[in-house]
C-alpha cells in the first residue's frame, strides 16, 4: 500500500523495521527528522531501543561503534558538519570492521555556511573505508536502508546510505513501506562474531606495527571489493521479496543505440529522467545511476559504457584545485577501454542551487566541443563575483 511520507519519516520507519537496539544521534545543524521519527516510535512503545542523545556527532558515531562491539544492531544519522566532525570515528569504525549502518542526509559543508543539499560531506569521507550507496528517490532510501544492514552484517563493513538532504529527506513522496514479515525474512537477527564477551575475552583495536598494518589495509580493501557481490545479491533478493530493486551497483536507463550517456548519483537522476522526456528531439541518451560509489564498480561501469562516444558525469561536489571527484574516477575506469568514450565532468547543484530541467539541453550542447570538458562548475554567475575572483 502506498503512503505519502516525508523521506526522513520513511527512513525512520525502515530503520525501526530493522530492529536496532541502540540509536545514537546529535542534532547538529542541518538536522533531519529521522532520529526524531525514531524517538517518536520509541516513545509510543512501537520500537524497543535505547536512544542515546549524545553531546556531539563525534560521540554519536562512538556510541554506535561501542554498541555494535557489545553485540547490538545500531544506527546513527548525520550530515554536513556532523559527518566531518565524526570523520575520525568513521575511519575507526571501518578499520575495526564494525557492521554499522548510518544515513548521510547529504548537505553542503561550511564555509560559507549552507544548510542546503550537495554531496561534499559524504565525498569528503569516501576514503574512510565505508560502503557508500546513493539513493535516487525516497523509495530507494527505504529499500536501501534495509539492504544496508544485511550488506554490512555479511561483509563486516559499515554502510553509509546517502540521501540528498531536503531534496529527498524533506520531500513527501508516495512510498511503499515493507512489512515486518518481509524485513524479518530478509534480515536475520543481529550477530557479530567479534562482539565483546566476558566468557570469551578478545582485545580489539590494538596497536599494530608496520609488520602488520599493510596486511590490515589490504584485507580491508579486498573486503570492499568483494562487497560488490553482496550489494548486488541484496538488491536481487529484495526485488524477489518486494518486487522493487534499487539498481545494484549501478543502473542504466535508455535505448541501446544511444551513443551519449549522463552519469550521476542521487536525486539528480530523477531530474534527468524527466528532462529526457521533456526534450525527446535531442536524440537517444542513456542515463546511468551510480548507486555504489564505494566500492567503485569499475567493471560494471566499463560494461555499460562500451560503444558510447561521450559520457557526461554530473556531481554535487568537487575537489578544489583538482576538479570532479566522481568524474576523475569514471575517467580513470573508462580509460582502460579500447575505444574509450570522451568523459565530460560538471559539478551542479552546489549548496542547494537548483538543478532545472533545462540543464539537459545545455549539457548536450556543451559536449559538442572539439575537446571534452575536463571539469566545469555549471551555472556559475560570474557577475556576482569581484573581477579578481572570476
Amino acid at each position, binding site marked *: 500500500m502506498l503512503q505519502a511520507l516525508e523521506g526522513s519519516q520513511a527512513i525512520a520507519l525502515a530503520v525501526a523495521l530493522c530492529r536496532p*537496539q*541502540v540509536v*545514537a544521534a546529535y542534532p547538529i545543524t542541518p538536522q533531519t527528522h529521522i532520529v526524531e521519527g525514531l524517538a517518536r516510535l520509541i516513545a509510543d512503545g512501537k520500537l*524497543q*531501543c*535505547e536512544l*542515546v*542523545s*549524545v*553531546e*556531539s556527532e*563525534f*560521540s554519536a558515531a*562512538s*556510541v*554506535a*561503534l*561501542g*554498541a*555494535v*562491539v*557489545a*553485540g*547490538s544492531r*545500531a544506527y546513527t544519522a548525520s550530515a554536513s558538519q556532523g559527518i566531518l566532525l565524526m570523520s*575520525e*570515528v568513521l575511519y*575507526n569504525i571501518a578499520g*575495526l570492521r564494525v557492521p554499522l549502518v548510518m544515513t548521510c542526509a547529504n548537505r553542503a559543508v561550511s564555509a560559507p555556511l549552507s544548510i542546503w543539499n550537495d554531496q561534499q560531506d559524504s565525498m569528503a569521507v569516501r576514503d574512510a573505508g565505508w560502503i557508500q550507496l546513493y539513493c535516487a528517490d525516497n523509495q530507494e532510501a527505504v529499500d536501501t536502508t534495509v539492504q544496508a544492514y544485511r550488506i554490512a552484517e555479511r561483509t563486516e563493513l559499515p554502510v553509509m546510505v546517502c540521501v540528498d538532504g531536503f531534496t529527498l529527506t524533506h520531500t513527501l513522496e508516495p512510498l511503499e513501506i515493507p512489512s515486518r514479515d518481509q524485513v524479518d525474512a530478509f534480515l536475520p537477527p543481529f550477530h557479530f562474531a567479534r562482539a*565483546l*564477551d*566476558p566468557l*570469551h*575475552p*578478545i*582485545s*580489539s*583495536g*590494538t*596497536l*599494530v*606495527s608496520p609488520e*602488520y598494518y599493510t596486511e590490515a589495509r589490504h584485507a580491508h580493501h579486498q573486503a570492499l571489493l568483494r562487497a560488490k557481490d553482496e550489494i548486488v545479491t541484496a538488491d536481487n533478493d529484495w526485488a524477489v521479496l518486494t518486487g522493487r530493486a534499487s539498481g545494484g551497483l549501478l543502473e542504466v536507463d535508455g535505448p541501446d543505440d544511444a551513443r551519449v550517456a549522463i552519469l550521476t548519483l542521487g536525486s539528480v537522476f530523477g531530474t534527468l529522467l524527466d528532462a529526457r522526456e521533456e526534450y525527446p528531439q535531442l536524440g537517444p541518451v542513456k542515463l546511468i545511476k551510480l548507486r555504489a560509489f564505494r566500492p567503485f564498480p569499475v567493471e560494471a561501469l566499463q560494461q555499460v559504457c562500451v560503444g558510447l562516444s561521450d559520457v557526461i558525469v554530473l556531481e554535487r561536489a568537487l575537489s578544489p584545485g583538482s576538479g570532479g571527484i566522481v568524474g576523475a574516477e569514471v575517467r580513470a575506469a573508462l580509460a582502460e577501454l579500447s575505444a574509450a568514450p570522451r568523459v565530460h565532468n560538471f559539478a551542479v547543484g552546489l549548496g542547494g542551487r537548483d538543478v532545472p530541467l533545462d540543464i539537459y539541453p545545455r549539457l548536450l550542447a556543451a559536449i559538442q566541443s572539439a575537446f571534452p570538458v575536463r571539469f566545469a562548475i555549471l551555472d556559475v554567475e560570474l557577475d556576482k563575483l569581484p573581477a579578481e575572483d572570476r
Partner: protein
Amino acid sequence: MSDLAETLMPIAELRRNQPRFRGLEAGHLACLGCGQALAARLVTEAAGPDVAVANATGCLEVFTTAWPQSAWRVPWLHSLFENAAAIASGMEAALKAQGKPAKVLAFGGDGGTFDIGFQALSGMLERGHNVLYVCFDNEAYMNTGVQRSSSTPHAAMTTTSPPGKARMGKRHLKKDIISIIAAHNIPYAATASVAYPSDIRKKVRRALEIDGPAFINIHSPCPLGWGHDGSLSIEMARLAVECGLFPVVELERGALTGTMPLRAPRPVTDYLKPQQRFAHLFQNDPRAKEELEHLQALADHNIETYGLRGERPDPLDSAGADTVRRGGVRWA
C-alpha cells in the same frame, strides 16, 4: 561425586569469587615502575572478570596490546583518544538492551580525560550511563613524549613547558577534575593513589555496586615523565598524598563523604625534590623560592578545603592505610 557437586558454587559465582583474578596479565611492555600498569591491574583485579573495557589511546593501550599479543584477560576495545566515555556509553546501552549484566569500564589517561576526551566524559556522566570511568593520572602526555596537559601540576617541567629565562615550567594550575566531575552530581566520584592498593580496590568495588556513572582518578607516577627512579614510584605517590598536593577523597552526589586524613602533613619539598620535573625549583633563583611557596600554598589549600588534618592517628589515615600488622610487625 554428588556430595562434591552439592558443595560446588555455581560457575558464575565461582568466576566472580576466584582469588586474585587478573584482568591485566604480566608480560606487557610498560616501563619499570609504571604507576599506570599497577593501577590498571588493581582496578581489573577488583572489578573481576565480568566486565567490558573501553580504553582511550595512550600508554595503557600501547604497552598492553602490541599485536598479535595482548595482556588483557577481559574483553577490551580501543577506539580513539577522545571517545572512551562515548564508546563505553554505547557498550552500556547495548548490554542494557540485551539484558546482560556485564559492567562497563572506561580507561583513559589524564590527557584523554582532562583534555581531549572531556566532552565525551561529561556527556556520559550527564546521561547517567552505568559505567565506571577510571582516569590514570600521570600528569602529562607521557605516551607522546611528556607534553603538558591540563593535569600537569603548576611549575612542572614538561617538553612543552620547559623552564628557562622567561618561564618556570607550567604557568597554569592543575585542573580540579574531581570537583568538575562531582558537579555532575553523579552517584560516586573519588580520587585514589597507587600508593594505597586496598583503597583502590575498595573504591572500585564501591563504584561497581552503584547503579549509575562513577569516576575514579588514580594518581599514577610515571618515572620517565617525572624523572625519578622506577623503584620510587610508590614512594612518590605516597608523598604526593602526604604533602596534600594530591588529596584522596570521595564524593557522592556532589557531597564530600570521605577523605584520607594526613597523619602528619609533609612539606611539599619532600615530594618535589626527588623529581627531575621540579629540579629547576631547587636552584638558587628567587623565582624558584616563589614557586615553591606557591606549591606549598596549593597543598595547604587542599588540606584546608578537604579538612585533611587528622586529629589523632587513624588506622585508615595516610600513614595507616594499606598497612597490615601481624604479630606487632608492620607490613607495608
